[in-house]
């Protein structure tokens, strides 16, 4: 059913609207985030993902609170993160928080692991900033085990040992949430995603695509190396950033002040230079469609496309209009076009239902194999 998933991801920044000078309150921004997620479902998108940040000017410090609240007000959309800090969150807490969310949302949960965007976050949670990558590796190894083994004995370098510990509740239907690994620059993370056969998400915004292409290629190659399938069967997600109006010139005129003053890239190159160099598209829905479809030429057929729609101080009303355009004019065409020429071996986007079916098939296969082995033993006697 869901060959490819389309959705949005938010950073959750509280940024002044440069056209009015007004900064929303944290309360307004949090409520706006919920409105945006609801709208995403209403216009037919598949995924809503929230960032996790613990410093101003960002508000989403408690992702499962936010996602649980949204889960209660939606029915279909998959709730995800962009990203969950695998470095500074206790893996035991992640295992339990997201398992609860998985039960409450009837399986509409996956996660993207990341290391955050600011060094100082490590000491805020009692972690050593110099151990970023080792923390990501050890913590995820434990999380992976906690979701797959009912009783865990474990010891490691970065937290107290566990003896006969059971993370509760157990994952819904015994199927852990699917995990993506997000990285902007670390080949180690692409390697980690490949090792586990998890998904790899290239944020694909702010920088030229060639940069992310290297990481995705590495991930695909290593995914095959670890025996999870062919490189083309690896699970790839991409970001993207767009601003649309029916007329291209209107989009450029309206977005320019937001672009010029945006966090991250503002006060740098012109909007024209930046759109030429990076995946940002400012223009008509048709231009967004063309640029997004071209991602496939760079990265191969992939499973998930998330757009950043709500940053740089864009008012809620504008963001909701953008989502209307995305849901009505862009995504239906993308679904149709991406489906064309998609090779048969390319997997569908991971969902709880899909993973549950695969797990059941595997169990039946194992049972059959066990039965056959027993028969063989009988015959041998």
């Amino acid at each position, binding site marked *: 059913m869901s060959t490819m998933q389309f959705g949005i991801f938010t950073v959750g920044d509280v940024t002044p609207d440069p056209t009015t000078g007004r900064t929303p309150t944290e309360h307004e921004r949090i409520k706006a985030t919920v409105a945006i997620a609801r709208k995403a479902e209403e216009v037919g998108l598949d995924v809503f993902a929230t960032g996790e940040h613990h410093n101003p000017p960002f508000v989403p410090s408690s992702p499962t609170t936010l996602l649980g609240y949204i889960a209660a007000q939606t029915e279909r959309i998959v709730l995800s993160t962009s990203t969950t800090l695998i470095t500074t969150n206790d893996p035991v807490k992640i295992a339990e928080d997201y398992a609860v969310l998985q039960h409450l949302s009837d399986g509409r949960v996956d996660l993207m692991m990341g290391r955050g965007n600011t060094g100082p976050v490590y000491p805020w949670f009692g972690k050593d900033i110099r151990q970023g990558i080792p923390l990501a590796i*050890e913590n995820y190894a434990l999380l992976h085990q906690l979701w797959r083994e009912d009783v865990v004995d474990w010891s490691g370098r970065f937290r107290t040992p566990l003896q006969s510990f059971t993370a509760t509740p157990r994952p819904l239907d015994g199927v852990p949430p699917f995990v993506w690994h997000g990285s902007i620059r670390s*080949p180690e993370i692409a390697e980690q995603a490949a090792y586990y056969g998890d998904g790899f998400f290239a944020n694909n915004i702010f920088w030229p695509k060639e940069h992310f292409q290297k990481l995705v290629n590495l991930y695909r190659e290593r995914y095959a190396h670890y025996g999870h399938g062919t490189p083309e069967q690896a699970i790839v997600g991409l970001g993207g950033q767009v601003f649309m109006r029916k007329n291209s010139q209107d989009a450029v005129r309206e977005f320019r002040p937001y672009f010029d003053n945006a966090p991250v890239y503002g006060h740098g190159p012109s909007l024209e230079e930046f759109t030429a160099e990076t995946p940002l598209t400012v223009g008509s829905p048709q231009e967004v469609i063309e640029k997004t479809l071209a991602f496939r030429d760079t990265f191969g057929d992939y499973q998930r496309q998330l757009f950043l729609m709500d940053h740089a101080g864009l008012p809620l009303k504008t963001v909701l209009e953008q989502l209307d355009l995305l849901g009505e004019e862009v995504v239906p065409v993308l679904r149709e076009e991406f489906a064309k020429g998609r090779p048969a071996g390319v997997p569908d986007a991971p969902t709880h239902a899909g993973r549950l079916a695969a797990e059941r098939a595997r169990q039946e296969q194992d049972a059959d194999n066990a039965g056959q082995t027993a028969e063989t033993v009988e015959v041998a006697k």
Partner: protein
Amino acid sequence: MTAYRLVVISAGLSKPSSTRLLADRLAEATVRRLTAEGRDVDVQVVELRDLATDIAHNFVTGFPGPALREAIEAVGGADGLIAVTPIFAASYSGLFKSFFDVIDPDTLTGKPVLIAATGGTARHSLALEHAVRPLFSYLRSVVVPTSVYAATDDWGTTGDRLTDGLPGRIDRAAGELAGLLAGRAPNGPAGGGAAQEEAVVPFEQQLAALRA
């Protein structure tokens, strides 16, 4: 026969600029030395003035625009560098430093570099030794022993009893750079130094390192 690729970086701001003039004379002298030994040399000049906006943008966005990317790739693929800056406020110019700030610090490892500077007065000549040379030491380049400082006066005078004139110093420094290059094989066609593959440590090894 494969040619040596010599990249000349000039941070001069005016046109014409005495910094560029010094850079050209150093390049000519180096090429003369190498061709005398039967070696081919390709020279590419990078004028940082033309890249000033791109360099500022790189600081803001974290990635180089097309022209800057080309310059960075040229530096990465070079067999040797000649780097010339005007001295501003007792040190290299901000533009000169900024160019090296946006380059991956490993790019210049082991590369022969000739450093030179221009200034209004000879009183700042040691800026080459206390500012420019340490920058390239940090970048693990092989900096030739003679650095060349050209004060305004140097363009119109000869040496004195303590030092050679500017032409003599240019020639000595160029000889040192040519000597370093001649002792090495050329890198070969463009892209050799820049397009390196992502290095990856196998995951089992990463996990094992934590258990050790």
